[in-house]
């Protein structure tokens, strides 16, 4: 069956069919659908044939060695090759196993990919997805644990996507692949296996720059990034039993950022807490607070707070590591202090 017929059939069958999938399976669905849909889409990376976390599993078998390319341990070459391929009309999806490995490729990612369109006066399309995995919690220690969304959000020309659920993972990855800009697509170590939900088997995409309100409430706004949405929701559940209603917002994309949704929420709740796994200093929490303060200053009843990694590399010891990750208890305590 050729790609086209297959697609029609698939679409017919799939309409309204849901399937319970994990976060990594959802990503796999997105890649498969997009690779079937557009022959210009291809994957490259160090681990993509075997795929330790399952995201690219089975793609090599379906699409073969020219669409699923295992590379040497050469992050600069991976990023540069993705960029060069995009310049001749391809739509690469490059994988960096751990986000820290992107440090080996920053020149190609930022001096080249992020700036190129601008430097060329707009005369280039750069439809590249740089997939990677961040987050803490798996005892990988400091060189395999770091959430670097700040670096990329600080590089104009890149979009930064951080899905927190299987549904979003699929829909946002499809949008990323169809976007004509370089996208840093950040997945999460723990969510791969732990996050599971019903996801449409059929085609859907999720636009960038639209936050999801995961829970509504009127007393405090909690913005959580990626896995911290879970933490925020757990804290909200706990707070609810004490009569405190927290609104939990998942920005889904950091660049572009849906500030309107956050500001509207703060205008209602008058209080803001941002929770993320990245280091606090220069983290996205600072940016979100600075923007909310600029746009909703008069609505704030208390100083916005941040809960984040306390500016330390991630320790190996699992108890210490756990202490370095924002906890439900921290969020609950912060809300209580904000309201007191």
């Amino acid at each position: 069956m050729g790609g086209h017929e297959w697609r029609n059939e698939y679409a017919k069958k799939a309409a309204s069919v849901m399937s319970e999938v994990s976060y990594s399976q959802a990503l796999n669905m997105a890649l498969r659908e997009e690779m079937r849909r557009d022959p210009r889409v291809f994957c490259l990376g160090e681990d993509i044939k075997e795929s330790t976390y399952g995201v690219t599993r089975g793609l090599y078998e379906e699409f073969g060695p020219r669409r699923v390319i295992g590379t040497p341990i050469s992050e600069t070459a991976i990023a540069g090759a993705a960029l060069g391929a995009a310049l001749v009309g391809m739509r690469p999806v490059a994988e960096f196993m751990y986000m820290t490995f992107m440090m080996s490729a920053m020149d190609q990612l930022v001096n080249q990919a992020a700036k190129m369109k601008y430097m060329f006066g707009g005369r280039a399309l750069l439809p590249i997805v740089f997939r990677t995995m961040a987050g803490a919690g798996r005892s990988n220690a400091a060189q395999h644990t770091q959430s670097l969304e700040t670096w990329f959000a600080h590089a104009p020309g890149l979009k930064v996507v951080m899905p927190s659920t299987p549904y979003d993972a699929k829909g946002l990855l499809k949008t990323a692949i169809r976007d004509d800009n370089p996208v840093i697509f950040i997945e999460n170590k723990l969510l791969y296996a732990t996050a599971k939900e019903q996801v449409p088997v059929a085609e859907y995409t999720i636009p960038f720059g639209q936050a999801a309100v995961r829970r509504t409430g009127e007393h405090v706004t909690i913005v959580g990034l990626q896995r911290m949405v879970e933490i925020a929701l757990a804290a909200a559940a706990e707070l609810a039993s004490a009569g405190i209603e927290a609104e939990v917002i998942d920005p889904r994309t950091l660049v572009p950022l849906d500030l309107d949704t956050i500001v509207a929420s703060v205008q209602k709740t008058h209080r803001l807490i941002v929770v993320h796994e990245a280091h606090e200093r220069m983290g996205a929490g600072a940016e979100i607070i600075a923007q909310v303060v600029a746009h909703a200053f008069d609505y704030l009843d208390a100083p916005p707070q941040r809960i984040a990694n306390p500016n330390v590399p991630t320790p190996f010891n699992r108890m210490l590591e756990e202490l370095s990750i924002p906890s439900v208890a921290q969020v609950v305590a912060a809300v209580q202090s904000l309201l007191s």
Partner: protein
Amino acid sequence: MSTLPSAPSINREGLNDDQLRQFYVTMLRIRRFEEKVKELFLDARLYGSVHLYIGEEAVAAGACAALRDGDVISSTHRGHGHGIAKGLELGPMMAELMGKATGYNFGKGGSMHIASLDHGMLGANGIVAAGIPIATGAALGFWIRGSREVALCFFGDGGANHGAFHEGINFAATLKLPAIFLCENNHYAQYQPVTQDLPVSNVADRAAAYGIPGVIVDGADVLAVYAATRRAAERARAGEGPTLIEAKTYRFEGHFLGDPESYRAKEEVAAARTERDPLTRFATLLTQLGLAGAEDFQRYDDAVRQEVAAAVAFAESSPEPSPDLLLTDVYDVDGRA
């Protein structure tokens, strides 16, 4: 340095008379363009970080002539010659150097970032060796599609010491991608003589580390560069993988406009200008072959000078980019930062 081939024994590489003459004109176009850029810079009619290609013209002219439409190049901070040889027009190039709205990059790139994807010119590059993985990627794109184009990357001797050189070439070699890595060894990386940074005699010696051919050519000999590039391109199109070509060349000017050149002897430069000028050399050859005489050369020069003058006039009379452009082109579609 190779001695001049005597006229009768020359291998024309299948090129006809006009094609041979065209080499000269391309080199001359680069030379006069660069001379004018220097003059304008010293007159403060042009600004920025400018690295001249004077002395190295045969490399760009020979290499790009061996490419076809659809083939692409990636380039360096010293990229004017590459652009001209790949067919970019002098007007928008000069305008870009002046930061004008009519430049290839609307004035937002300048000398180190001139690009024209329509011409297969994937960009000059301010970062040493960064064009190498990019060329590998273009070649990867061709290989995935199964099309027959080739990607050629110009880079300097200094670039051969950067990690991007190693990773980019190695990756291309593992997949036998249709890429050509052309090192312009002009014997200096900024102020450092190549002997200080390169612990081997030739950059081409590094080809063996990737299992690909390493070819050394006289970079002052446009035909030699052409021949080596053509063979590398054939190899690439045949699916046999990349080639590393090292063109031994010399830059007659400083590293950038403003370089005090304290690191090399004036005599060394003077000797190179006398003995290794690719234009003089090729003019002699054309004369020996009876393909051009004094009048022809005068005619070429007049035409090229006019072309350059027209480019300057175009650039100088062009408007500055509108202030709005500051915020555009960061992203596609929405277009704003």
